[in-house]
């Protein structure tokens, strides 16, 4: 761990799962001292470095250091706290998976907001991309000897990011599209479901996940 024991973090975001869940899980897994701030919005917009959230504030030795952009924050925390491999190629393979997952967000919004004439095409594109991501998760898992992790045999950035990804697409995004879980859940293989549930049981993640609804009930639900 490269951060001092007197370092404290503040994660500024909305009081939502949104784009911050990966950051929350990393700070939790790191056993870092951290709190969350939910700035009044849009009143506090102009006070953020790039007028967007999340923002990470790192305070140590009376100094304050600020970072923006959710994926940059994630990669930073993953490196500081040892969840990103030091080998460049291994790191690139984990970051690749995370970036692919992130590609789904604009596709989700496009099919959600599409006018009638474009709806079917945008839904197809969303499904194609989602299928590809799920397939890639399966491929990575099949190549790993441990089936409780994507790479190696310990909790990694990729594991944390995968869990946050499925939490977003099965739980969080229901507030925008009530049937999203019915679209996503059937695509999950038993192996991926087991992986999600294994990550959920990681002791390092307990301080945060104990405050959240478990995905276990959602994933085993036969109501779709």
């Amino acid at each position, binding site marked *: 761990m490269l951060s001092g024991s007197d370092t404290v973090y503040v994660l500024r975001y909305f009081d939502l799962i949104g784009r911050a869940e990966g950051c929350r899980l990393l700070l939790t897994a790191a056993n870092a001292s951290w709190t969350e701030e939910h700035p009044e919005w849009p009143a506090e917009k102009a006070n953020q470095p790039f007028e967007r959230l999340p923002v990470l504030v790192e305070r140590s030795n009376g100094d304050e250091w600020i970072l923006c*952009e959710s994926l*940059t924050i994630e990669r*930073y925390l993953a*490196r500081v706290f040892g969840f990103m491999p030091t080998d460049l190629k291994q*790191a*690139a393979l984990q*970051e*690749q998976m995370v970036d*692919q997952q992130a590609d789904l967000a604009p596709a989700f919004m496009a099919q959600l907001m599409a006018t009638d004439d*474009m709806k079917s095409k945008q839904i197809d594109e969303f499904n194609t991309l989602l299928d590809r991501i799920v397939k890639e998760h399966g491929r990575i898992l099949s190549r790993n000897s441990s089936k409780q992790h994507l790479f190696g045999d310990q909790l990694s950035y990729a594991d944390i990011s995968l869990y946050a990804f499925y939490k977003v697409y099965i739980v969080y995004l229901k507030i925008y599209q009530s049937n999203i879980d019915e679209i996503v859940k059937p695509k999950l293989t038993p192996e991926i479901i087991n992986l999600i549930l294994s990550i959920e049981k990681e002791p390092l993640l307990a301080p945060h996940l104990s405050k959240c609804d478990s995905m276990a009930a959602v994933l085993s639900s036969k109501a779709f």
Partner: protein
Amino acid sequence: MAANKNLQYTLRYFDRIGVAEGSKLLLSAANVEWTEEHPEWPLEKPNQPFGRMPVLIEKHSNDKDFVICESGNIERYLARAYGFIPSDIRQAALQEQLRDQASDMFAAFISQLVAKSEEDRKENFAKFDGLLDKLVEVQTKQINANGNIGHMFGDRLSYADIVTYAFYKIIVVGMVKRQANIVNIVKPKLTPQLIKLITTVEANPLLASYTARGDSLAAIVTKPTPARL
């Protein structure tokens, strides 16, 4: 750094100035052997690892190929492998942040470009315009904090310099066929600090092979705007 004869790269992308531009700049600056492939599209789509481009293939004479995708990921890998991202984790994060911010601005640009209704186009353009203003502000602030010497950090060509240059090139040169007025929207917003960074990047000897390909961004941003009569 002398080119390693056992190592060569292939970058697969469309024959255009787009999201692979940062990777092209990095491959040039790294002084490695590399070639560009422009697969026939969409014919070659199923032959790519994820049906998308860019794709980077790193070929070793004594080992199997290493293949990665996702434009930002390719950039960060090359930038780290060839010393354009610092090893200090905080300094690295500050450079990556600038790339993600520029990429957000580009996504907003695309949103207004592809908007269907006039109402959507106006709304999306306002978002793009606002984000561009904010981006110019944070970029200029960083350049000033570094002494306004044509670099974002330190005194040598860095990942941050390259990606800042790349995203302006994509919009001002790459996108001009799709939106002719974009030069007149972006150019007036560029501060002297950004213009100096753009010209400094383009003039860097490490990028001589890249610059020789043409499409000078520096020429466009330094060209005096004709006076209105």
